[in-house]
């Protein structure tokens, strides 16, 4: 045991004296005001579920690259939501009313909703979309299909920001803290092409070449990533207290930790990386080989319905 020196004791005493004042009352008042406008979130989607399919997939060593035709990803924008108008401030209760923010985590009735998911990369940016019945909102930044988001047949949609990329998505916890990953080992520039090229150049997973796209008139790149088809979660870094590991393609610097790890072996992740008036955002849709055509069509319809207000 090491006893503190006289100098240490004087340092300790000085710190105690420096810290004698408590917080001013205005701090609590201001915090309460912000909390009234803040909902709780969960940090990540459900972990991989045990699945017999994983065992079968374990013998599969080849990674199948599914290259979707560009036209599939580039369906024309549809604003055909009947009476739903483009967002504009209005007190009217008619169908032209600006959609309200989707609840933090709840099943959604069919209708038009909004997220304002970016507090760091695009503060104030709002995305609006139309969902059919059966989908759920998640965390103020994502939508979950009626069959969940995980393998073998799930699907989900998210609105994300990617600030850095992992060269090894399985070993992201470089500090050994077991917390949400905030920084990947690959630094990237701020442009759409910087992120698209960084993802496309990785060898731990396969991807299609980025091609031009747009959503709601905002230009960007679209690509599809396929994660390993074998179940490698046991070898991946884990959250503190978690049994299964997680596989992350990128890290986000959003303070809400709004990010989505790979939802199961062989996940296919469609990305639309957009430049919205100089702010880079990512629209995300994941699916699996077992995801039904009907669910994929619903996801596509949601994406086609997206409007963006910077």
């Amino acid at each position, binding site marked *: 045991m090491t006893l503190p020196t006289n100098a240490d004791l004087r340092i300790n005493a000085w710190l105690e004296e420096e810290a004698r004042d*408590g917080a001013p009352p205005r701090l609590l008042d201001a915090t309460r005001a912000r909390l009234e406008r803040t909902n709780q979130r969960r940090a990540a989607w459900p972990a991989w579920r045990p699945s017999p399919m994983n065992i079968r997939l374990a013998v599969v060593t080849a990674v199948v690259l599914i290259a979707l035709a560009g036209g599939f990803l580039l369906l024309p924008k549809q604003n055909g939501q009947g009476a739903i108008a483009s967002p504009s401030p209005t007190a009217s209760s008619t169908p032209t009313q600006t959609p309200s923010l989707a609840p933090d985590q709840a099943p959604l009735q069919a209708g038009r909703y909004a997220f304002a998911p970016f507090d760091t990369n695009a503060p104030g940016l709002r995305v609006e979309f139309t969902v059919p019945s059966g989908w759920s909102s998640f965390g103020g930044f994502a939508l979950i299909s009626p069959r969940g988001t995980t393998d073998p047949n799930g699907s989900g949609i998210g609105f994300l920001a990617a600030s850095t990329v992992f060269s090894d998505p399985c070993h992201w916890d470089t500090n050994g803290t077991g917390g949400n990953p905030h920084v990947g080992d690959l630094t990237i520039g701020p442009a759409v092409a910087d992120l698209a090229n960084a993802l496309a150049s990785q060898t731990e997973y396969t991807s299609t070449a980025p091609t031009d796209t747009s959503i709601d008139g905002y230009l960007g790149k679209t690509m599809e990533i396929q994660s390993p088809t074998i179940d490698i979660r046991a070898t991946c870094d884990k959250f503190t207290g978690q049994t299964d590991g997680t596989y992350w393609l990128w890290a986000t610097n959003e303070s809400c930790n709004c990010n989505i790890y790979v939802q199961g072996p062989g996940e296919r992740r469609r990305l639309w990386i957009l430049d919205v008036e100089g702010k880079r955002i990512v629209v995300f849709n994941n699916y699996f080989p077992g995801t039904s055509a009907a669910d994929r069509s619903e996801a596509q319809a949601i994406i086609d319905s997206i409007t963006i207000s910077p």
Partner: protein
Amino acid sequence: MQQSELVQRARAGDRDAFDLLMTSVVDHLYRIARLILRDTDRAEDAVQEALVRCWRDLRTLRDPDRFDAWLNRLLLRSIADEARRQRRFSASVTVLTFDPSEGDDTAAVADRDQLARVFDRLSLEHRTIVVLHHYLGYTVEDAAATIGIPVGTAKSRLHYATDALRAALDADARLSSTKQAMA
């Protein structure tokens, strides 16, 4: 009501429970932030941000008994964010300096001022490790885990910062001796 019970209720969305929880920890958070940031306004901003993040992400906390450590991590992250903003701002303003020891005759005041001057000159990372270790009483290992850095890095930072503070005290002792000898 026990803190762990408040945490559990707040995790379930009970805003009243979170208010009680927040009220019980805000002084503690503010003192840490003020020590590290050396600025009351920015300390308030950092604490406010940490508390909002705490409420928003509370469902991710798996073990309510680790609430304090988790909250301290949130605070340190908010402090780092605030410091980054401060650096951007500081780059465009003129920094005014003054020597608070001028006119102080007592050794205690000189001691305090000398420590303050040296502490202010330390980097944010060094001030953080000093506060965790000397003020909160963390072991180096716990401090490293809280900050999210290797133990070796934490030891190195603490060694550097503590040496600087000890040197300040030694210098001050020499100055006091000189003044006494000249009196």
